[in-house]
């Protein structure tokens, strides 16, 4: 498996909960330069990789943001074409793009589908207009549904909906309603994220002043459980802490992250990983452009993971997955004895029924999914 992440940082406005690497109100010049530099980075990165490992095609491509659809369909198609021109892409590769429901015309969706995107991730966030307003979104519930239908007509047969829950002041009934409207649309995939108050965001400032009171963990757990029940009843199975899919429609690109796989990354703020080597690019779009122009690289940091750190990540991410992680496979991959490294805690947590182990595969008992981090903090070496 080899993934590629491409970051498009532009947004019309910043949502008050967002702490991603995004750029608001970009002038046309910056957008043009960014696209040019992104193309250059794609060419450099992919060519280098194709040369060193020619037998390894890309198995997934993910255009994320920001708002990738801030760019025109033609520009996006050119970028995808650049990828195809530079490196082999597996015929069944999953090629995703993120989009927001506002200002998304059906013909743009058609163009994207025709250009080769086969998976669409829609940031609908909620089907409650009051909640959408509080989240600072510029679309309403109906627009969300309309864009979904448009995407279907445009040819997308693999659509994911992003939802946010545990909004301050949101009722459990409102969350149920959002889940039910989601189910009615029959998407292939749903991501449910508990609202996280990230440092430095307007929400964090409101929380500091006491104008926003985060939903208590115990109540969040109830909402999380509600999502699981309603979505699973509709055939969307929970395959990761926050992700649900019809069997076979799990996001391949993200699964590769969670299995500790290899992925290349281009664009500002993007993180890549190859066999324990991780690197990341400059976060701010203008500086990214400048670095690319001056140095032909925007890489600003890297780390080499020790086998133990890699084990920690595999454990931490594996616990979030329904499939868990395999002790023998991990041992072989990292050249260590994973069971020995995790010993005391592994045994204790298994005895308590918090972890399940079957033929060397360790996974979290379903009831313990909401406390995956606490389990990971105990288990990692």
């Amino acid at each position, binding site marked *: 498996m080899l993934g590629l992440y491409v970051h498009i940082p532009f947004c019309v406005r910043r949502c008050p909960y967002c702490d991603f690497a995004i750029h608001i109100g970009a002038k046309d010049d910056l957008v043009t330069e960014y696209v040019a530099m992104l193309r250059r980075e794609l060419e450099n990165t992919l060519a280098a990789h194709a040369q060193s490992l020619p037998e390894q095609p890309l198995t997934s491509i993910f255009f994320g943001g920001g708002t990738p659809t801030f760019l025109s369909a033609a520009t996006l198609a050119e970028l995808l074409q650049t990828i195809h021109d530079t490196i082999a892409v597996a015929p069944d590769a999953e090629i995703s793009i993120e989009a927001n429901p506002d200002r998304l015309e059906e013909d743009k969706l058609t163009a994207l589908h025709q250009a080769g995107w086969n998976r669409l991730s829609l940031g609908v966030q909620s089907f409650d207009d009051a909640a959408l307003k509080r989240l600072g979104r510029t679309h309403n519930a109906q627009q969300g549904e309309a864009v979904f239908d448009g995407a279907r007509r445009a040819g997308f047969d693999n659509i994911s909906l992003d939802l946010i829950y545990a909004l301050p002041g949101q009722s459990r009934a409102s969350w149920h309603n959002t889940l039910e409207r989601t189910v009615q649309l029959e998407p292939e995939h749903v991501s449910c994220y508990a609202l996280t108050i990230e440092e430095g965001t307007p929400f964090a400032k409101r929380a500091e002043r006491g104008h926003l009171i985060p939903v208590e963990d*115990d109540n969040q757990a109830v909402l999380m459980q509600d999502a699981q029940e309603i979505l699973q009843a509709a055939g969307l199975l929970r395959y990761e802490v926050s992700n649900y899919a019809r069997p076979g429609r799990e996001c391949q690109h993200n699964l590769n992250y969670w299995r500790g796989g290899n992925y290349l*990354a281009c664009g500002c703020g993007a993180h890549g990983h190859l066999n324990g080597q991780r690197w990341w690019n400059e976060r701010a779009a203008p500086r990214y452009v400048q670095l690319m122009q001056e140095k032909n690289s925007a890489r600003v940091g890297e780390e080499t993971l020790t086998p133990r750190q890699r084990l920690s990540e595999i454990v931490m991410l594996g616990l979030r997955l329904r499939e868990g992680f395999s002790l023998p496979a991990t041992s072989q991959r990292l050249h260590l004895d994973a069971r020995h490294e995790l010993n005391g805690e592994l045994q204790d947590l298994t005895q308590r029924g918090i972890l399940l182990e079957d033929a060397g595969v360790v996974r979290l008992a379903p009831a313990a999914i*909401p*406390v995956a981090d606490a389990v990971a903090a*105990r288990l*990692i070496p």
Partner: protein
Amino acid sequence: MQQELIRNFSIIAHIDHGKSTLADRMLQMTNAVSERDMKEQVLDSMDLERERGITIKASAVRLNYTARDGKTYVLNLIDTPGHVDFSYEVSRALAACEGALLVVDASQGVEAQTVANAHLAILGDLHIIPVLNKIDLPSADPDRVITEVEEIVGLPGEEVLMVSGKTGAGVDEVLEAIVERVPPPAGSLEAPLRALIFDSTFDAYRGIIVYVRLFEGTLRAGQQVKLMGGDHRFEIIELGVFRPKMTAVNQLSAGETGYLIAGIKDVADVRIGDTVTDPSRPAAEPLPGYREPKPMVFCGLYPTDSNDFPALRDALDKLRLNDASLTYIADSSPALGFGFRCGFLGLLHMDIVQERLEREYNLSLIATAPSVIYRITRSNGQTYEIDNPAKMPNPHEIERVEEPMVTATIIVPQEYIGACYDLCTERRGIFKNVEYSSAGGRVTLTYILPLSEMIMDFFDQLKSRTRGYASLDYEVAGLEAAPLVKVDILINGEIVDALSFICHKEQAYKRGKAMCEKLKDSLTRQLFQIRVQAAIGAKIIASENLSAMRKDVTAKCYGGDISRKRKLLEKQREGKKRMKQVGSVEIPQEAFLSILRIGED
């Protein structure tokens, strides 16, 4: 030196009655310290002493005073510790004197330790000069206080002097009274050497400094000495007096007070109350009154960081150089790791040692709840003492438990007598006596109380219930059998040894429940339910549940989040390593700290 020109005296007082200020003023008026060197409370040399306004170690100063008769006298002022924990040290310091100034605050009046100290001085056959201090204050009420001195202490009112240590008023009269009223020492210069050790201190540069009062014979620099309580012989390296700086002299003779340095390595060799003699011409008998210091209060001290165990050992070794009454043996607790079981003279002593360890040696400590020594008689007739509740056997193996008692004297304005009765009754006190004084409506109450109740927070409670007006003194009063039980605290069925305590059967439920609630409140929720219980033997008497945590998971964990999240978990993991583990329940240090700190109310 002519003995008729020497006066050895000490100053005794209740805490805060101005003893040190008066001493400083006397030093100044006899030119022992210059105006320039005068800092408040010259005699209290430790930071802690100056801060708390109490004297922990005794101290001795030589003053030269030219009296109205034209002769110049040597006045040796021996300062004494002002707290009940150190009453033995007070008695030894008093034994080095022929007279004492009894300082009483002219507003506060006679307090419990005024009486206790006066009794010690009377027992030691000292001439007492009653001194009313702080007469410059508007609240001073000399008439009432003089009546109290007559009625409560039993000293003639016409002998009372009026002074102000602050302004210096009347202090010359005090100096004159010392010369006139305190008898000069009267030991034979020719008899075999007998010198009383009334204190010792450790100086990093000069080693152990022994404070002595010569009763008979002569001491010369360079001579051999023997401490009669043991077999050790030492050669005197330096002999001297305090002016108040240490000043070497060639000899000291009967009646004089000073210090000796003799290359003594272990402070345990120098026991307060022991007698120094000349091995070539030894005295037949040591001076009377020597007693082994006996710790009364015990607690476990554990470093919060287990790596600090050697540092704690070093710090205790060093502290003991100045404080032979501190005892400690290495101990280990499954819950708290390696530490020491320490013995103290009393609660204040315990506080001071803990504070010095934390402040002077930069240690962060967990102290278990203070305990006393219990005498256990087992069903098979075997008898032994325990100073740690964890060592108490199972209830069915116990025939009898005896606990140490104290006689407590409380002096309090009459309107608070009810509050004192209530408190003493709550603390299993047995009423002994009540005496009323005719002036000012103050009452002297006497109760027999278990020491264990006394060391909880008795004094704080007494102070708060009497608005600070009550004063307290106590002395040991033997052992008494009582229906005492050990209460264990369990977390998910496992005993947390550090939290076990011994209490009266009838209070077991209340205290056990309070402890469970506190422990529950200071624990964070974990992956599974936590059951906190209190038990006597196998019988559960109280129980609390802490439900499992419901949610602890990051919503998003994609490419850019992974490193960040891993680092966070690694940090959390490191934090857990510092937690104390009981079974599989992690107990943060803070939980122990908060429980043990408030475990007293």
